[in-house]
């Protein structure tokens, strides 16, 4: 092998780091993002293994009924609620509900938002104008009020609530993706692809979309946190899942809010569970934003 050949080989072997592996490298060096990752991992594992972690079922009555529940201790880590149910088990099972709600709501918002944003950004002109003005109108109503209205309209099933919360996030995703696509559409690689005859649909799906998606992923992570809080807030004002037995953190909090003096533990634990899970998503979302910022790429 000649020296030139060897050098050429080296050049090929030395693959440029992709956006994602590069981002992951930076994420690993960000202590805040790592802590966020640990929190999310704990949250997800708790949700998955709830039946093994929780000593009792979420609806199982293990103690006697009492007005204010029983404070922690005596074999019950978080005490008992007023129906005599093990509170630790209910908080643990609540993780399942919150994870489901967070992920599905964002899934709904993301997919609809992506569809609208991609359509607006790709076709431009009146399609763009129509979609984006409609999004402006939706955005002008505070998300939580909109969610309250939608839940009142659709009903208080778990599915309806997830749809309602998801719908309130659609405009944010649509806007983000549209802006990102508009920038990518004018880029040189898109021009190059067009000039060699790549059909429009393929250009959008294979070239433009993958390059426009990173801000959407960051927003998606942060929105999971918002969705968890929003559903809890809906429960808090009495518009949560209609099923009273569901261990929803916001509802558990609301049920005990009037008994602050004597049953503070009933408010504290589900509240802390909400804070910890949303903090995880906020931290990792923040870290991701910094990690995939092209300005910071070496």
């Amino acid at each position, binding site marked *: 092998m000649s020296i030139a050949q060897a050098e050429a080989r080296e050049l090929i072997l030395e693959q440029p780091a992709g956006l994602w592996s590069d981002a992951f490298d930076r994420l690993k060096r960000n202590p*805040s993002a790592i802590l966020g990752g640990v929190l999310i991992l704990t949250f997800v594992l708790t949700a998955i293994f709830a039946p093994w972690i929780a000593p009792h079922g979420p609806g199982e009555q293990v103690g006697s009924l009492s007005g204010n529940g029983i404070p922690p201790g005596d074999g019950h880590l978080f005490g008992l609620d007023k129906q005599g149910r093990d509170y630790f088990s209910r908080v643990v099972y609540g993780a399942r509900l919150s994870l489901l709600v967070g992920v599905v709501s964002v899934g709904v918002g993301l997919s609809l938002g992506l569809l609208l944003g991609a359509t607006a950004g790709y076709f431009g002109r009146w399609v763009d104008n129509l979609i984006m003005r409609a999004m402006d*109108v939706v955005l*002008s*109503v*505070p*998300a*939580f*009020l909109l969610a*309250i*209205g939608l839940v*009142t*309209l659709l*009903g208080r099933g778990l599915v309806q609530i997830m749809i309602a919360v998801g719908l309130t996030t659609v405009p944010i995703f649509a806007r983000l993706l549209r802006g990102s696509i508009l920038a990518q559409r004018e880029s040189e690689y898109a021009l190059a692809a067009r000039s060699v005859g790549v059909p429009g649909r393929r250009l959008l799906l294979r070239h433009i979309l993958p390059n426009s998606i990173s801000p959407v992923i960051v927003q998606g992570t942060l929105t999971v*946190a918002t969705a968890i*809080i929003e559903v*809890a*807030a809906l429960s*808090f*004002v*009495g518009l949560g899942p209609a099923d009273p037995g569901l261990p929803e953190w*916001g509802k558990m*909090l*609301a049920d005990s*809010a009037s008994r*602050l*003096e004597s049953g*503070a533990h009933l*408010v*504290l634990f589900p*509240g802390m569970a*909400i*804070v910890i899970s*949303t*903090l995880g998503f*906020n*931290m990792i979302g*923040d870290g991701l934003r910094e990690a995939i910022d092209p300005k910071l790429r070496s």
Partner: protein
Amino acid sequence: MLKFVVRRLLQMIPILAILSVLLFLFIHSLPGGPAIALLGERATEEGIEQIEEDLGLNDPLPVQYTRYMKNVLQGDLGSSTRTRQPVVEELKQRFPATVELGLAAMLFAVVVGIPLGFIAAKRYLGVLDNTSLFLSLIGISFPVFFLALLLKYLFAIKLGWLPTIGRIDVTRGLDTPTNFYLLDAAMARDWEAFKDVLRHLVLPAIALGTIPLAIVTRITRAATLDVLNEDYVRTARAKGLDPSVVDRRHIMKNAMLPVVTIIGLQTGLLLTGAVLTETVFAWPGVGSWILDAIRNRDYAVLQGGILFFAVMVAVVNLLVDVSYAFLNPRIRLR
């Protein structure tokens, strides 16, 4: 400038018109209705029929809408189906309550957040910077209602330093011509009442202001970092200007632009938070009012309350745009 303000005000008219139609359709498509909400469990066919007839709910929607808008243009927002009170009267009571709370919350966020963000940026990557970043992340992760309950538990119930609910001690006879209690107390020179109102305001304002505080801190920090390395800042320093003057005139003023935008954008967020904060502290404002109205299908209150808020949000946005020109003379409003 004046031309700009007038044109923006005119532009609001079609938007509000469209919003009022959408809102009307939405409110009337809610399941149930004021009659069922009023009668509750004991509702009979005839009873419902009677009330709907009285309220004019059997007319076609376009007829109802036209009738409603005619009254609105004459300053009559109708009456609550629940309390029979005119919506305008109740709005006069409740709106100042929410504004007082919102302003106090925003004041808290700005007075703490701007200096904190500024100092964090000047100590970029230092201990204080990292701490404030971390605390602001915790701030956004805290549900408003949970924070409100914690504050209430700790400072009102456990320590007993501050009152738990309401705007003022109920036994205190204070004349409230404006319904901004702080203003009313100051005008009556009743400083005991003033102190009492202030004490009632502290916890709800902190609960409502914490998320804006976190956001204001972060934006101030980011904006200051952007400006800190500008050429004109280096020039100002190089020509030997007093560092505190550079901070104030060259850095702060230029960094304030995005901060003002964010403060304006918080208005919607404040309303959301107000619904929850007012619920926890039994604060007689617009947030808890609208929530009650949704439960009771109180059509007039919903329509009037939400429309009124839309106007407020639009006005705040206009004020934000005007303040741009003040902060940055390069921006010409047209």
